[in-house]
């Protein structure tokens, strides 16, 4: 077993770095819907950051549910450790889901929090599982603690199917259903990036659960490897976020509301100060043409060489909601690293017992 724990530690380290690379590629180069009704089309790059974490949190809560049933059935301390570890990792994933979702919602739906049925469902799920930790740490009797908390973990799991099915239950949601997503997801590059990211995020979570449940068996060398991987991952993400943020300098940053004319002599309706103005672009915009239309409406752009309502060229910028979500992703990875590498004051404290 210790050997497999060591291997899992190295695999986790590798996956953390790979995850940062795939995530960086996604925010820099992945496809997004060309035309959207509100906000920047590039805000949909959040599909590759927010959605995999949201989806896999359900898997970890399911793991906690199964482990809780097994614990009540067999009363093995091992299953109790897995209930706690699955719940801890899943709750970290759910916290990131809530934060990244509301940042994206502000750009694409118009408000940070909309009391959308799915949002409400995930919030209830998150709160229900926070109670798990409060309940567990409030019981001082070491025999009762795992029994009561496993019973509660089974009950709290009811929020998972409710949260997942919320758009169908409420029959009105700003969240799309699976069927509505299918068209976009069927595009080969979207599918390749999205599923690669989802599998990596899932494996990272599963390995984190396994390692947390067996923390005492990790050698200092493996712990160091995980620490270096977390640091590398965070540096890659912060580096790419910084690069995207720097793109905002060196020109007039504005949003495009309408496009007129041919790609070689296009005019853009943009916001200049407190009013709207038409700006002609000297650059050939053919590279932005999608299905015969210049796909720039909604985008945050940087107008370079702007003078007297004409600009030499433009650059499409990745919107701040994607950059911010990616920075929060670095925090999320740091959090995962922290819970794995933090040294408990005692073995008991590791699973919510008082030291």
């Amino acid at each position: 077993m210790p050997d497999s724990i060591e291997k899992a530690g190295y695999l986790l380290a590798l996956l953390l770095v790979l995850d940062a690379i795939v995530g960086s590629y996604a925010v820099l180069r992945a496809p997004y819907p060309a035309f959207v009704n509100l906000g920047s089309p590039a805000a949909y790059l959040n599909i590759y950051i927010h959605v995999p974490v949201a989806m896999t949190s359900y898997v970890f809560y399911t793991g906690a549910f199964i482990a809780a049933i097994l614990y009540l059935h067999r009363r093995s301390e091992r299953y109790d450790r897995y209930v706690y570890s699955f719940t801890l990792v899943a709750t970290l994933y759910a916290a990131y889901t809530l934060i990244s979702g509301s940042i994206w919602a502000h750009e694409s739906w118009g408000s940070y929090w909309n009391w959308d049925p799915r949002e409400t469902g995930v919030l209830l799920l998150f709160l229900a599982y926070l109670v798990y930790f409060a309940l567990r740490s409030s019981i001082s009797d070491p025999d009762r603690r795992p029994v009561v908390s496993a019973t509660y973990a089974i009950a709290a799991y009811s929020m998972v199917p409710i949260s997942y099915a919320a758009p169908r239950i409420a029959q009105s949601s700003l969240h799309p259903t699976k069927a509505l997503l299918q068209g976009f997801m069927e595009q080969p590059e979207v599918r390749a990036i999205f599923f690669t990211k989802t599998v990596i995020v899932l494996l990272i979570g599963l390995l984190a659960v396994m390692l947390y449940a067996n923390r005492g068996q990790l050698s200092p060398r493996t712990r160091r490897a995980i620490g270096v991987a977390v640091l590398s991952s965070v540096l890659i993400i912060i580096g790419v976020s910084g690069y995207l943020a720097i793109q905002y300098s060196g020109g007039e940053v504005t949003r495009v509301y309408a496009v007129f004319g041919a790609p070689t002599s296009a005019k853009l309706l943009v916001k200049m100060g407190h009013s709207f103005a038409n700006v002609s672009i000297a650059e050939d915009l053919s590279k932005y043409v999608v299905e015969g239309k210049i796909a720039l409406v909604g985008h945050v752009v940087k107008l370079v060489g702007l003078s007297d309502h004409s600009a030499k060229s433009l650059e499409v910028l990745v919107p701040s909601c994607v950059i911010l979500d990616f920075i929060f992703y670095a925090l999320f990875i740091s959090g995962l690293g922290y819970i794995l590498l933090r040294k408990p004051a005692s073995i008991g404290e590791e699973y919510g017992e008082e030291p």
Partner: protein
Amino acid sequence: MGKSLKLFSVAVALFLVFAGIGYYAVKSSAYMDVSQVLKLDHRAKVTVRGYLVGTQYDAQARKLYLWLEGKHGEKLLAIADASYIENKYGPIQYLQWDPDNVVLQGIYDPQHKVLVVTDILEGCHSNYGQPAART
């Protein structure tokens, strides 16, 4: 085994209670239909979803009028401040709506059967049917 069975029973009972609370919370967070709003007999803050069947812009008054149609064909007039809309969505004449997914928040005035809009939210359902682009 008897003790385990008792604990499982408690877990299942709690599961059902939680599921009931969750189901009710999610169901009640569904956006109101136009017909439900029109039945209100007192001023209330509402979030209503409907099909956008018409818009009209009064440039002098700087107001945008939106007509939402409910599931059963009832229509609700909503009035939004143009400067708020322009700030959030851009110039009124270039607004693009997904008519099936407009969600309005506002104060409903039952006397005049009008919704005074405080916020406009929009779902992203139709956006996923669009071709792909990249930066």
